[in-house]
């Protein structure tokens, strides 16, 4: 009953002579949350960027509802519009206010009228608790507020899947909560998501499946209960152990 929204098949990607992705396969089923964990430099961002066409894999395919995103076809271009992306650094458009940031896609990409685009923008900004800030320019807001607006911006395109690349890593610790609350709400409402995160607690709580990446390959894949309490691979165990020792949040026992 759960159909695949995204199928990654045999992804390879190198930058120069550095192999960053070395054969990646996985599926994301409709309504599921996939969490990607792994140490810095293991290729998580590159993987996520391959999923929405910001990078093109050297080999392999990404299928979105069966459409090959690597193909340079109109279908692939249209399909990419239905994949939302949230960046570590928010990447709001600095020249536009929050409302304009969220209207641009609906208006120019989805062809809505100004009034419709505005309604859509305001509705998603309300969902993330940012409706009061529509007149603000990005630099006038805190990181947490910017990230919530960036999530609203991605949602205005009514994507079938949302990709998050360490959405809370650039935030001051006290601002992490408000962004996670929005992400949690999205996950619980049944959105299909892929989230790269260092928040193990979030991965454990929200994910239907967890991928542990190490050196360009999926070292281990499984349900969160298993990955976090009985990792099969030594690499996974040592990564998690390093994490628990560190200053990062611990998964609840």
């Amino acid at each position: 009953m759960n159909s695949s929204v995204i199928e990654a098949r045999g992804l390879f990607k190198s930058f120069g002579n550095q192999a960053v992705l070395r054969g990646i396969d996985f599926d994301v089923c409709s309504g599921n949350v996939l969490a990607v964990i792994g140490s810095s430099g293991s290729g998580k961002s590159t993987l996520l960027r391959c999923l929405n066409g910001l990078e093109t894999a050297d080999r392999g395919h990404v299928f979105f509802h069966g459409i090959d995103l690597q193909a340079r076809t109109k279908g692939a271009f249209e399909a990419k519009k239905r994949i939302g992306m949230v960046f570590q650094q928010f990447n709001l458009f600095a020249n536009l206010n929050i409302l304009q940031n969220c209207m641009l896609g609906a208006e120019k990409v989805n062809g809505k009228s100004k009034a419709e685009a505005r309604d859509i923008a305001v509705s998603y900004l309300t969902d993330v608790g940012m409706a009061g800030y529509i007149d603000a320019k990005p630099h006038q807001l805190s990181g947490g507020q910017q990230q919530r607006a960036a999530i609203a911006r991605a949602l205005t395109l009514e994507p079938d899947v949302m990709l998050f690349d360490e959405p809370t890593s650039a935030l001051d610790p006290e601002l992490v909560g408000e962004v996670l609350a929005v992400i949690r709400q999205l996950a619980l409402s049944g959105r299909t998501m892929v989230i790269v995160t260092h928040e193990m607690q979030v991965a454990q709580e929200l994910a239907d499946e967890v991928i542990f990446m190490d050196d360009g390959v999926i070292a281990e894949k499984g349900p969160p209960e298993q990955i976090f309490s009985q990792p099969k691979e030594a690499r996974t165990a040592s990564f998690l152990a390093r994490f628990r020792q560190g200053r990062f949040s611990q998964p609840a026992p």
Partner: protein
Amino acid sequence: MSADWFVRIIVRYWPLFLRGAGLSLLLALVGTLAGLLIGLGVASVKSLPPGRTVAGRVLRRAVNLLLTCYIELFRSTPMMVQAMVIYYGSEMFFGISVDKLTAAFFIISINTGAYMSEIVRGGIFAVPKGQVEACRAIGLTHGQSMLYVVLPQTLRNILPATANEFIINLKDSSVLNIISVNELFFVSRSVAGANIRYFETFLITSVIYLAMTLPMNRLLKYFERRMDGPRTFNVKEVTG
């Protein structure tokens, strides 16, 4: 030298000075704006994504090479020399005799365009890459992301440099006296020569140039504030 001469020159020649100053100002204004447009065009073409087909890539290379030649040629030779070559060359080689005023506007524009191309390129480069990726992520085309996100920020980034170009143009329009354009320097030279009063005349000329260039700083600050928009925002009451 006597104060007397200042008064006499001003009283007698002020309409001439005024017209000369007006033309200098117009040359600088048109030159800077046209140069800005040229710069936006050249830099936009140079920042196009690489072609997908072999033919497309070859064409891109050729166009880029041509644009680089244009930029380097005009940045590496004095405008005075360019004026001579273009003004006399156009007649000699193409048989078109452009009037000197048209030539002057053309020369200052194309010369400024060469500098502005590099300035705009820097301004485009200064727009954070992440925002361009966000454009792609929401499905905007390259043209749309340039239009709505990159170029507006580029314009803001290059505002000070553009104002600087304007000041340079205001002063450097004086070299166009070489093709007998009635700008301020040319007028001043005629006045000075007619009365054999060089110092007095050119002191007046200096004051006029100063009066035109000094307000630029304030004008720049004004435009910067306008482009930046309000410093604060009001949190809206959220209802419903």
